[in-house]
């Protein structure tokens, strides 16, 4: 078996909120191997998005370790994490999170510019062409539909050719046809570039397209569905 790209050992996450301390993840141990597509599923509030955040270094585990490409994310500071993501990860959000003051082209070019690519804009334009938006390069997010915005977000995530693609309910804000198109693109990109894909989803058909699914319940990995499947 090849080396895991992402590895979590007894990872826990607790956050302080207005109502006091809330334990969100309870000792998650999980490996994701190179090139795999992993679906994170589970009811609302089960900790799927939080687990994705730990994997992307967007949230720091309260205890345990989170390793990506052999590097312990829990030991990195905010800037080191940002640089790590810049070099190795792409993230797609349910709400797109495009920068409203930038055009589609500029949004896609941002991570490439941050990595110091001289041809950031050429590559960004090619990436937008890949997602079928070559006619929308100079449009601002507010001038695009939800599906188009998510395609821009997808192009932005994949443009730097990341080793790991993380997607948090990428079709959650889209209708059926648009959602399906986005999923096709996401998997197509993964196939072309060989990235490891972890996605959070509520959609059973989307989960079914993944190599493997992990069920979460109350912040823990729930083995029951897998056992049922084995039986």
């Amino acid at each position, binding site marked *: 078996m090849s080396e895991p790209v992402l590895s979590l050992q007894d990872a826990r996450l607790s*956050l*302080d*909120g207005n109502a006091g301390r809330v334990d969100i993840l309870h000792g998650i141990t999980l490996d994701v191997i190179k090139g795999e597509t992993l679906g994170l599923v589970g009811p609302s509030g089960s900790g799927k*998005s*939080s687990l994705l*955040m730990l994997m*992307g270094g*967007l*949230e720091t585990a309260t205890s345990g370790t989170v390793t990506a490409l052999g590097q312990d994310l829990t030991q990195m500071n*905010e*800037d080191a*994490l*940002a*640089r790590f*993501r*810049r*070099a190795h990860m792409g*993230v797609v*959000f349910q*709400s797109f*999170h*495009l*920068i*409203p*003051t*930038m055009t589609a082209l*500029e949004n896609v070019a*941002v*991570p490439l*510019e*941050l*990595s*110091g690519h001289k041809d950031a804009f050429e590559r960004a334009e090619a990436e937008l062409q890949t997602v079928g938006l070559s006619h929308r390069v100079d449009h601002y997010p507010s001038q695009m539909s939800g599906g188009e915005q998510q395609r821009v977000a997808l192009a*932005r995530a994949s443009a730097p050719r990341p080793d790991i693609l993380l997607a*948090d309910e990428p079709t959650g804000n889209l209708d059926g046809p648009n959602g399906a198109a986005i999923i096709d693109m996401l998997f197509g990109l993964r196939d072309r570039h060989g990235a490891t894909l972890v996605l959070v989803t509520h959609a059973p058909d989307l989960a079914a397209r993944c190599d493997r699914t992990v069920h979460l319940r109350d912040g823990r990995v729930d083995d029951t569905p897998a056992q049922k499947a084995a039986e």
Partner: protein
Amino acid sequence: MSLAIAARFARRELRGGLRGFRIFLACLALGVAAIAAVGSVRASIQAGLEREGAALLGGDAEMEFTYRFATVDERAWMEDQSLAISEVTDFRSMAVVDGENGPERGLTQIKSVDAAYPLVGEVVLDPPIPLPDALAGSDSLPGAVMERVLKDRLGLEAGDTFRLGTQEFILSAALVTEPDSAAGGFALGPRTIVRTDDLANSSLLGAGTLFSTKYRLDLPDAAPLEALENEAETLFETSGLRWTDARNGAPGVQQFVDRLGAFLVLVGLSGLAVGGVGVSAAVRAYLSGKTGVIATLKTLGADRRTIFQTYFLQIGVLTILGILLGLILGAGLPLLMSPVIEARLPIPAVFAIHPAPLIEAAIYGTLAALIFTLWPLARTDDIRAATLFRDALGSGKLLPSWPYLVTIALLLAALIWIAIWFSDAMTLTLATAGGIVGVLLVLTLAAMGIRALSRRATKLKSTRGRTALRLALGSIGGPREEATSVVLSLGLGLSVLAAVGQIDGNLRNAIAGDLPEVAPSYFFVDIQNDQLPEFRARLDANDAVSRVDSAPMLRGIITRINDRPARDVAGSHWVLDGDRGVTYTDAQPDNTTLTEGEWWPEDYTGPPLISFAAEEAEEMGLSLGDSMTINILGRDITGTLASFREVDFSTAGIGFILSMNPSALAGAPHTHIATVYAEEDAEAGILRELANTFPNITAVRVRDAIDRVSDVLAGLAAATSYGASATLLTGFLVLIGAAAAGERARTYEAAILKTIGAPRGRILSSFALRAALLGAGAGIVAIAAGITAGWAVTTFVMETSFIVIWPNALAIVIGGVLATLLAGLAFAWRPLSARPAQILRARE
């Protein structure tokens, strides 16, 4: 690398326009404009004084002697240096006109001149006749000209006659302008000009009379002014000579303008501090709107430095824009208003764009913007990428990290240092800076306190059922920071206004309120030795007179202390500025309290001894046994300090800094000064009787003098009020900014309240209550800060007693409540009129 990327990101973000930055720009521009405008007017006056230096002075250089004319040697030196000389004497006297109801009198400042006057400039008369013709007189009477205000008061027309002392003059014309008026300093009476020769029979310039002579020198074009000054002061070192030249033709005016300018710049700086609060709030609101963008950038791999630089550059561009706007306003307004300002200035001014004050204002603006934006900008560090997944929980950090704090502290120190350097008034600048920083700290604590109290109050049983109040308290104590911004901006603006109000009120009280009860009715000066017994006898016989004090009076200049130049020992202490009254007395007067040393024996005839004012002695660093040389009428008298005594100048009674034993001043010609305390109704009669009997005596009515001083102070208070109102206007702008920033949140609040059944009246009253509570909070802190500042200035700077002027103080609180109400309610319209469904759907 990261800076280039940051610059690109910043440029893209700025394409969103200046929305949300209007208050930022207005606050910065207003603060910079106020300082630039004050500086520009000051520079215009300075340029005017420099250009017209010779005309203001009446010559290229002036040598002034107190109490005497120049000696033969002094005159010979002047003639050697000059192409022409003009001699002018200056003193106070009474102009007397015989009317139908007896003689009418008016205090006047007489200038007696020679044929060479004026060397520079022109005397303008009405009717427009040449001065020599006007002074030549007619009908065998010498001529005179006087200012219209005195001419009208005495009911004189051209051709009428009046007396100065015992000499009759014929009035030839009204004096419209004299070129050298600004150099004369503070005058208690309007001007009359006559020829010096014509005063020979007036008995006004007798021995011991208080007058000064000024010799105006017309020097060759390339005359080295500084070298000549040094030569004159070396040659006539102990003569009591005062040198002035065209490099600074009106030193008194220049100094006054400089000091007032420096003070107004400090008021302007407090305005900039108020604006800074608005700037800070605007940046915070902008960045809070950018949280998603910042988190996204971090997710995409932007490090903290790149993010900080991105927003620092954006704010930098806006800061430059704000400062440029302020400079255009600050340089343009004085230019536009120059006809109005010139008409009100008694001195020349050259209105133009003066770069120096604009640079000063730009430096202040830049530093203030940096100080107030770094703090909120530092928060970009704390925005985490995870914010995109859930509402930001906030880092909970109160302070930014230490490198930011150190940078802010260094910038603040630089700002204060530059302000000290520009204003040349260290204590005042430090006190102002300390005051502003202190008030900001107290206001921050007060804002935290108000929020904490509001949070607690919402949980009290007594607020149950009072929905509007609970909503108001909840919104003040809630997690948003609008309350802090309102308390800071309004509180600081009101504090400046409260301080000005307390100082102004106490100053007016000190002059108008306290003095007349203890102050004398009249000062009489120039009473000759042989006139004193009869003078006193007449007053003693008058029942309306309660008290008469008199003392011999000479004028002298302190030239040396312990055989060193006095300035080297006591620096620039005011006692060394020009001549001081000197008196002598054998026995210690009844009302004199010694603080140190002993009075000389009544029959003492040994080496001269001096009793000196205790407070001034301490300020000048003098101690008993020190020797002091005083130049009186060109003669040096060196005495030893034998005692220190309390001298109270605040009662307007007779107070001498210097008193000596009689034999020390034996033979020196002198006159007497007297103060007369009488019932107000009897004042006119006393003046009539004494002036008729002793025509050479000059009477100064204390009430008139106080009014004259009050007028000058009222002008100062008005200038200060303009500065303070600029501060308040900035404060109001900041309030509007805060109200506008909170509009979105209140719209959401109102939408929810309407959904759950609250009528619009209830919602509006909760908004109004919230504004009123914050305004009252800010007002109360402002009163405390204003009273403290007022007390400090009154006690330590003005050295008079302090009382709290409650009407001013209460007006501040009411003003604060009204201002926040106005700003708050102006932005209540949209929240109240918006339909809840739209608002709530937009939030999903």
